């Protein structure tokens, strides 16, 4: 949260029920003890690298009413520079004046910058296979999955880099950019609430605090609409497939996927681990999904192919033909389209609600009530 802006005097009471609620403190500070705890866990060689708040997937559905509060933070109107911000890794980033040459190293941040009206100042971006927003098409690519072109970023005269945490951007590249005195803001949103905070942080960093607040309100309105529509619905068991090569991948326990499915009125079937995304078929058969959502449909996975997999025929979802494709990117990209993503999930899980879906959504599930009965 910006030092230049006074945060809303009282945190929304119901939002504060969230584990990582919006408050006067950036989430990164709250995660500091987690780092220490994880250190011990890691010493035992068990895995996770990133501190992230734990949200039991089965509890995420009940989080839904918590987001109904839509009171926008009434921050000071004119964001003043210089400003000192704390990013999601707890690093203090000082910006002397409003950044004019911004590089975005996560696709979500590119979307955020364009959505809050700072798109004309984006001089470089990370490669985005989804090519969104279209206005960002002409922005030079300065980073890909395999690396960041630090030289190009320097050559562009960049005065702010927004990078991804939790390995989203190579930590070495962040370190190198900072050693060259280029301010780097690291964002990482492990859950929906953090997405709001990152949007506001970005707004503060580029002098667009009000537009960022408005965007957050807009996304929250989407979440509220979904909350109202899905109130009291039955929550079918949903398996969200994230990949089928070389084996079947689902979703990890406290991932944003699990939270989103919960908020969309489903019960997510997770792998049972916070770091392992691989889903053993035996486990999936035992969990017996009532709906299978193909997040990997963009990679050519079809309902027919899923139904033909060995051992899958007995699952309720396969028997009822409840296998639907989805556009994975809005569902998981922690940016302005998160509300769209949630609506897509509701359309897949609860087609009977006839909730409005964003344009450009994939074909609707033909079956009106896929869960039998």
């Amino acid at each position, binding site marked *: 949260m910006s030092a230049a802006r006074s945060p809303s005097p009282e945190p929304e009471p119901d939002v504060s029920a969230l584990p990582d609620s919006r408050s006067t403190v950036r989430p990164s500070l709250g995660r500091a003890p987690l780092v220490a705890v*994880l250190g011990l866990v890691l010493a035992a060689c068990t*895995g996770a*690298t990133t501190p992230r708040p734990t949200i039991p997937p089965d509890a995420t559905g009940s989080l839904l009413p918590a987001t109904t509060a839509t009171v926008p933070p009434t921050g000071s109107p004119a964001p003043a520079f210089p400003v000192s911000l704390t990013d999601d890794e707890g690093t203090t980033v000082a910006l002397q004046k409003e950044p004019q040459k911004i590089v975005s190293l996560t696709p979500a941040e590119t979307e955020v910058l364009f959505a809050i009206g700072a798109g004309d100042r984006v001089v470089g971006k990370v490669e985005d296979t989804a090519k969104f927003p279209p206005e960002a098409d002409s922005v030079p690519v300065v980073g*890909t999955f*395999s690396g960041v072109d630090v*030289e190009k970023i*320097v*050559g562009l005269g960049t005065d702010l880099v927004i990078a991804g945490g939790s390995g989203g951007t190579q930590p*070495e590249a962040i*370190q190198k950019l900072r050693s060259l005195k280029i301010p780097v803001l690291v964002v990482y949103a492990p859950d929906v609430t953090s997405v709001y905070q990152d949007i506001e942080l970005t707004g503060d960093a580029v002098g667009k605090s009000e537009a960022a607040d408005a965007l957050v309100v807009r996304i929250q309105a989407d979440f509220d609409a979904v909350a109202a529509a899905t109130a009291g619905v039955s929550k079918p068991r949903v398996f969200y497939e994230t990949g089928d090569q070389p084996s079947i991948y689902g979703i990890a326990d406290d991932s944003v996927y699990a939270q989103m499915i919960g908020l969309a009125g489903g019960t997510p079937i997770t792998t049972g681990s916070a770091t392992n995304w691989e889903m053993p078929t035996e486990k999936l058969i035992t969990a017996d999904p009532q709906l299978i959502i193909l997040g990997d449909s963009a990679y050519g996975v079809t309902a027919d192919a899923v139904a033909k997999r060995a051992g899958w025929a007995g699952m309720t979802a396969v028997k009822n033909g409840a296998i639907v494709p989805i556009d994975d990117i809005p569902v998981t990209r922690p940016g302005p389209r998160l509300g769209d993503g949630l609506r897509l999930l509701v359309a897949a899980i609860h087609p009977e609600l006839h909730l409005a879906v964003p344009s450009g959504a994939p074909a609707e599930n033909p079956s009106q009530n896929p869960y039998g009965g």
Partner: protein
Amino acid sequence: MAVGQDVLARGRTAVRWPFHRRPLPLAVIGAAALGAALLAAVGLGSVTVAPGDTLAILAHRLFLLDLPRTWSPTAETIVWDLRLPRAIEAAVVGLGLAVAGTTFQGLLRNPLADPYVLGTASGAALGAAIAVLLPVRVEILGFGLLQLLAFVGAIAAVTLVYRLSRVTGGSPLTSLLLTGYALGSLLAAALAMAMYLSGAALRQIFSYLLGSFDNASWAELGGAVPVILIASALILVRARSLNGLLLGEDAAAHLGVDVRRERAILLGLASLITAAAVSVSGLIGFVGLVIPHVVRMLVGPNARVVLPLAAIGGAILMVVADLVARSLGEIPVGVITAVIGAPFFLMLLRRVQRGYEL
């Protein structure tokens, strides 16, 4: 002249080495090529800096010439803080790997030996993976936790291999090689497990395994370069022992080489070079294996001649490979070393096929 050189030459009269009698011109050509490669590496990149500006920046910073500032501060940052340390790091790592490769091949009398043969690569990789998985940040002398643990891992692995090989039966060389292979496999299994458990950090481990000079900085150079250069110079001083060992243990002993002691020292120095190299650059294959062979094919087996020429050759190949790698958009440099080096090596192998052996 080195003891053993005549013996080596006499035993292998069937082989013709094109530069056997004139290694000095070859060294001069090599040094000039290295200079040209370094200049190209500093002058070229994803941002265009005028050649005049590049030279002026170098003259200004290297020789402290008081030139009129025709260049932008951005260009100076790119040339001085990004490209030059990277080019130097590539050169020194290439130099080190080639010297270490020459040493290991001679010590183990095995043409397939390379700097990684005694477990250094697996040890370094496991150390790097553990560093990636640990959520702490440390920095000592420009070395991050990853570099430190990679260095420690490499040294620990090769020390363990050496110790274990001493307590096994069988000839010392065979024991060393087989122990290295066995421990390397064990460490590779641990690495695979670490990668499996690493989740989002997998990419970082993977990019270490592929090798890169992307993170080169003056601070990092300050840690690794002195180690590599000093250890390489110390090996060069001991070229006589290396020549002796190449003839076999008995012959070496007859020539007055303290076989066990010299072997341990050379092994230690070559491992130190390898550990310092892999800690800053990751695992870059091929250079340490092939450059020594290329040089031997050109000048014959005398280590006194092979070592300095291999050093120059390794530096050239690595600088050029890194330049190509980053021109093509940060392709792994190990891919390029192999793509450039393998055809050249095969061509040489065809020409000197008669009787070439280590």
